């Protein structure tokens, strides 16, 4: 008997037919936004961890003889918080500059500064200005770049993009809530006679709300799976296309296995939002009955 059938004939309710489509679209957009936020977040972390613990000392070409470099390296190694200091070999400096200046420019005797790569101990903080002043006293013109100037601007931009992505996600969730509220209200109107009957039979509000909640869950699950599958397809495609691009400017556009699993939060949240919204909408409406 009943075999899991609802007291309410939801299958005849026209308004519920659109809910899976709406949820699918929301989950699709939400998953893309969430993936975007994850990529931005992991890129910021990677920049932060790669560059925060490093400094680059620049020695002017005119003063960059071996004795000056050795002196600076020795000073750096004695500096508290410095884990490692080593001159950057000329060929690496040449490789770094070649994309910007061209091979010919360097070979033509362009005065290229010498570089010393400094790695800080984990968690160590070194005041770049003070260090630069000390080194400059020893070898005039020596400068220290802790990458903070451009890194902090880049991180700020990244955080703003991340915040924007989450704000859009919140808007998508709000739109989903509104869609479920209207669908549920429509369902309440369509099934008013049966709801009245159940109410008269002594059904608790939660019994009736449970039926709407179950229906919303099934519809949202249908839409959620479809939307998540479509988003996964698009993300795979973007990842595949990005693999062919070899550029230092672009962050790595791919998700880790953990991030792929984390993406399941989007359809899961959509289902929970649909269930809770339907339940609360029905409970609020029923509370007006005697």
């Amino acid at each position: 008997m009943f075999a899991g059938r609802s007291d309410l004939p939801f299958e005849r309710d026209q308004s519920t037919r659109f809910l899976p489509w709406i949820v699918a679209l929301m989950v699709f957009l939400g998953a893309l936004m969430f993936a975007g936020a994850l990529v931005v977040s992991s890129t910021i972390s990677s920049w932060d961890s790669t560059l925060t613990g490093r400094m680059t000392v620049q020695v002017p070409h005119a003063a960059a003889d071996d004795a000056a470099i050795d002196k600076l390296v020795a000073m750096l190694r004695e500096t508290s918080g410095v884990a490692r200091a080593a001159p950057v070999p000329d060929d690496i400096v040449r490789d770094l500059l070649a994309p910007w200046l061209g091979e010919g420019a360097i070979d033509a005797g362009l005065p290229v500064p010498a570089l010393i790569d400094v790695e800080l101990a984990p968690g160590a903080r070194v005041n770049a200005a003070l260090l630069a002043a000390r080194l400059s006293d020893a070898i005039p013109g020596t400068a220290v770049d802790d990458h903070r100037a451009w890194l902090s601007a880049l991180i700020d931009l990244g955080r703003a993009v991340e915040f924007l992505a989450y704000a859009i996600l919140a808007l998508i969730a709000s739109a989903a809530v509104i869609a479920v509220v209207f669908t549920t209200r429509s369902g309440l109107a369509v099934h008013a006679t049966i709801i009245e009957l159940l109410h008269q039979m002594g059904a608790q509000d939660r019994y009736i709300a449970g039926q709407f909640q179950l229906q919303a869950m099934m519809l949202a699950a249908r839409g959620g799976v479809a939307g998540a599958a479509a988003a996964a397809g698009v993300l795979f495609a973007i990842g595949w296309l990005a693999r062919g691009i070899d550029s230092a400017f672009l962050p790595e556009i791919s998700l880790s296995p953990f991030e792929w699993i984390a993406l399941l939060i989007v359809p899961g949240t959509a289902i929970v939002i649909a269930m809770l919204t339907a339940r609360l909408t029905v409970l609020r409406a029923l509370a007006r009955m005697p």
Partner: protein
Amino acid sequence: MLRFENVGMRYGIGPEVLRDVSFSLAPGSFHFLTGASGAGKTTLLKLMYLALRPTRGLIHLLGRDISMTPRHELPALRRQVGVVFQDFRLIDHLSAVENVAMPLRVSGVLHAEVDAHVRELLSWVGLGDRLDARPSTLSGGQQQRVAIARAVINRPRLLLADEPTGNVDDRIALRLMHLFEELNKTGTTVVIATHSNALLEEFGHPVLQLDDGELDVRRTPSRSRS
């Protein structure tokens, strides 16, 4: 069992459809409720099965003052009241068995118990061979009996029926009335709303007469029944 004290009822800012209605139903009694169309019968029935709250006056049902009863406790009281609607209100996508089982399901009775009770009751009302039929495939009389079975499956202490004989022929009407009397003999308090003077005279139970929103309780002498 049920007591109304100076009950008044109006919808919104409209005129009072019931005025100073006072009466009392003893446990196990059988009453007819009658009156012209628009006299307030349906409103009175709705107040009896707690679908409405009165705008004034007191209603006591099964020893509880309804105005003082918290909303979440009303469902338990409603389960003690069976209602047979004039338009049956059977749910078309459910079978006869499923329709009758609804009050038990709503009450949280276990599946196995539901099945046994429902089949037994439907057989008792003569529908043992139409258990899985959808309401739309049943005749008016059969639908009526499914509606009655649904109203009594929970063994209610008060049974209300709104024009239960209005849509059936005299033979079936008589049979239904005998069914209500059988239920009454088991201790169920019964109130039947009807327009039929013949029915009032035939069965001779006390009558709650509604006239333009005011209630009068009278006894109708019964004709001798064969």
